[in-house]
């Protein structure tokens, strides 16, 4: 029996008039980046620093018979050469949240066998990177090739070669979840729509790769490591374990990241390699991936799924149930478990009132680089799958895509979906209406018709989909009955300091800058609290050793969580300042109100103290105050996840784990050249609702930029592994990232439905356009090709795939 306790948090009253929250101010981060003074990891040079380079496996699957490093060790400028076997003595396995990690041990370098092309087998440390790479060529490795496991469906066969022998299978996880009366709903259905879909792997590919600069202190045995990947800050003890040191001997210093898109989420391998080499050589060591390292070995390839889906509907287009069976090709390891499917389950029914869900997920291991995070973390794939199914149903029922969506929209909130997650608020009709108008839907339908008469294929894609925000870590463990764990918070912290002059500094505790605007956002929130100019707020990042609990960016959580922390720290500061002001004004603290940057006696504006007047007294003249008042004006707030609940013991209800639900509608218009298979954009409108906006232009940036990535996913980008297991796309020539000519300028609109449960009503929106664009573009292409009887269910829609589909339908040769 499923019993679930569903307490909801108290509903907040949001400030009606806001000064800074909601303004598109210039970003406070930008001046240093515009001057080329970003201070990225590659810019950091320490005295005596050495450089590491990694030798990579040319084989997808092979036993390492022997490694001879003697020639490399003798090469000029070389300080050390470490093989995988030696590294296994120097370090412990890397942090792994996957099921049964002992059965698929993951280390910084391969030990007995290599499991994908590009896996590291040895590292050279030399005076410079050129010399290190020279020496790599002098390492002699003898491999005994093994048959590669490439096709995830074939990998499930009983006689398939094994990627990890101790696992006894290539299936790392297989479970079917049922939420609601799926069988009954299918029995009662008037129509059942079925389909098979295929989403190929791509990746974030930020222009900056991942790297670390490590310093070892032989006196304490500890490390100070600078890196551009620092999130899951509260889990850094796991990195200390990999380095075999106590957690309090590790200090990780966050560096700004030149883009991440998820792919710099908790990347531990470069950090461990650099630290291992620093300890070995007694010198600071930099290990910075080059592009080939990153493409082949970043541990952050995106989802790679096969779907078998059935959808149950009534005759009039009401969707009642969905039955999803997915096989996900995780590659050679599975560091984050199947958390990607937790993301999918957070919003598995999209914006629709679907009543029951069956979800089977099989996580398969193959000889490829492993999956990590890519903007959407698997929920964008679910969006695409669901919208494809909705469109197919509309087609079979002869309904307009707008109509079928309206018929199924959720309209009352909070709404608990069958999996147990909650949607806090939304207005899906408003978003749809605005998009139809902005994107001139009717106009394009007319143009489409004329074009068809002329033999041109114009398509209009219309999708409505979710963007969940602010995860709770339950989604990383509710997959298992054992070990059970209590409900998990992923906190975020801020310290605010008002100095003696009244100037404010905010300290953040995780790597928050990876292209988003944490400093601007925090500055705006602080300015909103204290009525100052956001450009006068100083923002600094603390290293991990003196850090407060923090998680870092990911799952569109930063803005909401930092807003909570800023709100909490501000309240504490104001409380202390109120008492101090009351003392100085000889008034009752309760008679004071905050106005315009200071406290004043209600109704007596001339009796007031500004924040700086209060601050200088508190900093320098403590003895003017009561005994229990301490010098200074500095407060911290650890903000915990505001709303997460336990899953039921039988896992028929997963509880609340991703409650702040954004929504968007995308409306691209494309033309498909049926001769060449090339897709071009004629128009593109996108309207997002992620609650109250902090900086509308920043969000627009995520929508436009995320859509550019979504265009890559939909049309161009794919990490292609050949049948022999070779990675065929190891440069930007083979892995084409959209340029300014492939990306249209979006017409962007915003709807703001505040969350009842977050500060100011903010929801996360950082994953932006990539949540929706692949689904929308696929829909547009299918709409264009509908008169030819062609519907494509495989991304990316490369010209080759489009031409093949046309040929298969008997069009052209």
């Amino acid at each position, binding site marked *: 029996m499923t019993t679930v306790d569903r307490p909801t948090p108290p509903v907040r009253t949001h400030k009606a008039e806001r000064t800074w929250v909601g303004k598109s101010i210039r970003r406070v981060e*930008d001046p240093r980046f*515009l001057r*080329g003074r*970003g201070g990225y990891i590659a810019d950091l040079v320490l005295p005596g620093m050495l450089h590491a380079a990694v030798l990579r496996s040319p084989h997808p699957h092979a036993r390492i018979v022997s490694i001879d490093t003697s020639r490399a060790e003798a090469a000029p400028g070389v300080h050390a050469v470490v093989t995988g076997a030696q590294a296994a003595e120097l370090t412990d396995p890397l942090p792994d949240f996957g099921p049964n990690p002992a059965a698929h041990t993951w280390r910084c370098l391969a030990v007995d066998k290599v499991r994908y092309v590009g896996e590291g087998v040895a590292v050279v440390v030399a005076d410079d990177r050129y010399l290190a790479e020279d020496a790599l060529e002098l390492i002699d490795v003898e491999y005994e090739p093994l048959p590669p496991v490439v096709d995830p469906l074939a990998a499930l066969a009983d006689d398939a070669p094994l990627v990890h022998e101790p696992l006894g299978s290539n299936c790392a996880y297989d479970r079917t979840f049922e939420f609601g009366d799926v069988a009954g709903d299918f029995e009662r259905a008037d129509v059942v729509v079925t389909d098979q879909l295929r989403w190929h792997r791509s990746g974030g590919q930020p222009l900056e790769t991942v790297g670390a600069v490590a310093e070892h202190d032989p006196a304490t045995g500890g490390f100070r490591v600078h890196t551009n990947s620092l999130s899951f800050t509260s889990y850094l003890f796991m990195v200390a374990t990999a380095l075999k040191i106590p957690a309090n001997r590790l200090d990780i210093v966050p560096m700004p990241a030149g883009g991440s898109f998820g792919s710099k989420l908790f990347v531990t391998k470069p950090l461990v390699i650099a630290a291992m080499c620093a300890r070995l050589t007694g010198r600071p060591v930099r290990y910075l991936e080059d592009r080939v390292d990153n493409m082949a070995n970043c541990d952050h390839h995106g989802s790679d799924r096969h779907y078998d889906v059935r959808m149950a509907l009534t005759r009039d287009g009401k969707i009642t149930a969905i039955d999803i069976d997915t096989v996900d090709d995780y590659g050679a390891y599975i560091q984050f478990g199947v958390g990607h499917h937790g993301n999918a389950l957070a919003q598995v029914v999209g914006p629709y009132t679907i009543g029951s869900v069956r979800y089977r997920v099989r996580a398969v291991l193959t000889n490829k680089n492993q999956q990590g995070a890519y903007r959407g973390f698997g929920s964008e794939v679910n969006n695409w799958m669901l919208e494809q199914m909705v469109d197919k149903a509309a087609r079979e029922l002869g309904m307009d895509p707008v109509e079928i969506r309206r018929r199924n929209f959720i309209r009352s909130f909070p709404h608990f979906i069958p999996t147990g997650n909650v949607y806090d608020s939304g207005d899906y009709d408003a978003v749809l209406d605005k998009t139809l108008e902005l994107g001139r839907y009717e106009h394009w339908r007319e143009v489409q018709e004329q074009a068809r008469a002329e033999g041109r294929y114009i398509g209009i894609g219309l999708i409505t989909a979710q963007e969940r925000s602010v995860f709770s870590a339950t989604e990383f463990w509710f997959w298992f009955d054992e070990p059970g764990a209590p409900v998990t918070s992923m906190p975020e912290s801020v310290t605010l300091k008002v100095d003696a002059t009244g100037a404010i500094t905010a300290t953040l505790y995780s790597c928050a800058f990876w*292209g988003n*605007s944490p400093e601007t956002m925090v500055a705006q929130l602080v300015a909103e609290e204290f009525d100052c100019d956001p450009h006068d707020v100083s923002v600094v990042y603390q290293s991990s050793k003196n850090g407060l609990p923090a998680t870092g960016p990911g799952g569109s959580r930063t803005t909401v969580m930092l807003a909570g922390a800023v709100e909490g720290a501000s309240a504490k500061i104001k409380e202390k300042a109120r008492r101090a002001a009351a003392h100085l004004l000889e008034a009752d603290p309760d008679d004071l109100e905050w106005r315009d940057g200071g406290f004043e006696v209600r109704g007596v504006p001339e009796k007031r103290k500004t924040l700086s007047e209060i601050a200088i007294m508190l900093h320098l003249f403590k003895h003017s105050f009561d005994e229990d008042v301490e010098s200074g004006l500095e407060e911290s707030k650890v903000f915990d996840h505001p709303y997460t609940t336990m899953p039921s013991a039988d896992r028929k209800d997963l509880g609340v784990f991703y409650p702040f639900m954004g929504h968007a509608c995308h409306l691209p218009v494309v033309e498909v050249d049926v001769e060449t298979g090339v897709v071009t954009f004629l128009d593109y409108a996108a309207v997002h609702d992620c609650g109250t906006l902090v900086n509308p232009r920043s969000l627009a*940036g995520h929508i436009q930029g995320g859509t550019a990535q979504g265009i890559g996913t939909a049309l161009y980008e794919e990490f292609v592994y050949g049948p022999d297991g070779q990675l065929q796309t190891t440069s930007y020539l083979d892995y084409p990232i959209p340029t*300014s000519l492939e990306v249209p*300028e979006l017409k962007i609109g915003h709807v703001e439905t505040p969350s009842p449960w977050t500060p100011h009503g903010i929801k996360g929106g950082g994953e932006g356009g990539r949540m929706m664009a692949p689904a929308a573009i696929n829909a547009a292409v299918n709409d264009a090709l509908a008169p030819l009887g062609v519907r494509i269910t495989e991304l990316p829609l490369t010209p080759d795939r489009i031409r093949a589909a046309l040929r298969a339908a008997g069009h052209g040769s």
Partner: protein
Amino acid sequence: MSTREITLTVNGRRTTLSVEPRKLLVDVLREDLGLVGTHIGCEHGVCGTCTVLRDGRSIRSCTTFAVQADGADIRTVEGLAQGPELHPLQEAFWEKQGLQCGYCTPGMLMRCVEILERDPDPTPQSVREQIASNLCRCTGYATITEAVCAAAEVMRSGARAGTEVAS
């Protein structure tokens, strides 16, 4: 390894240095001259992150050996701002949010300097076509195009007013 002596004029300053023939221009700028504003993205000539101007023309410094640039006039992002004063392109990128992570920005800025030096009044479409040489993974380009057109306008009016426009 043997080295060769080369002379570069970088952001108006002449330097003579000895470099290995195989050393890339980007590494010489970053390591020997400390000009770390020029970034490395792909290291194989596709992304444009490493773009600098050589005798007024944009080049990929990741696929250019420093010795090939012997005697050349090189301009990098560090040469754009005049003290506290940002170049109009930098101002416009800031104003229009033509950047997010900032990693492509120095290369993109140098490419845009070249675009505007060749044509002070480009159409948005011409800007779009010309910045296709440089990848940006963050912005989706729209705000960059906008920024370049806005900077062009400022620079044209500045030029008309007889103000010296830093390049």
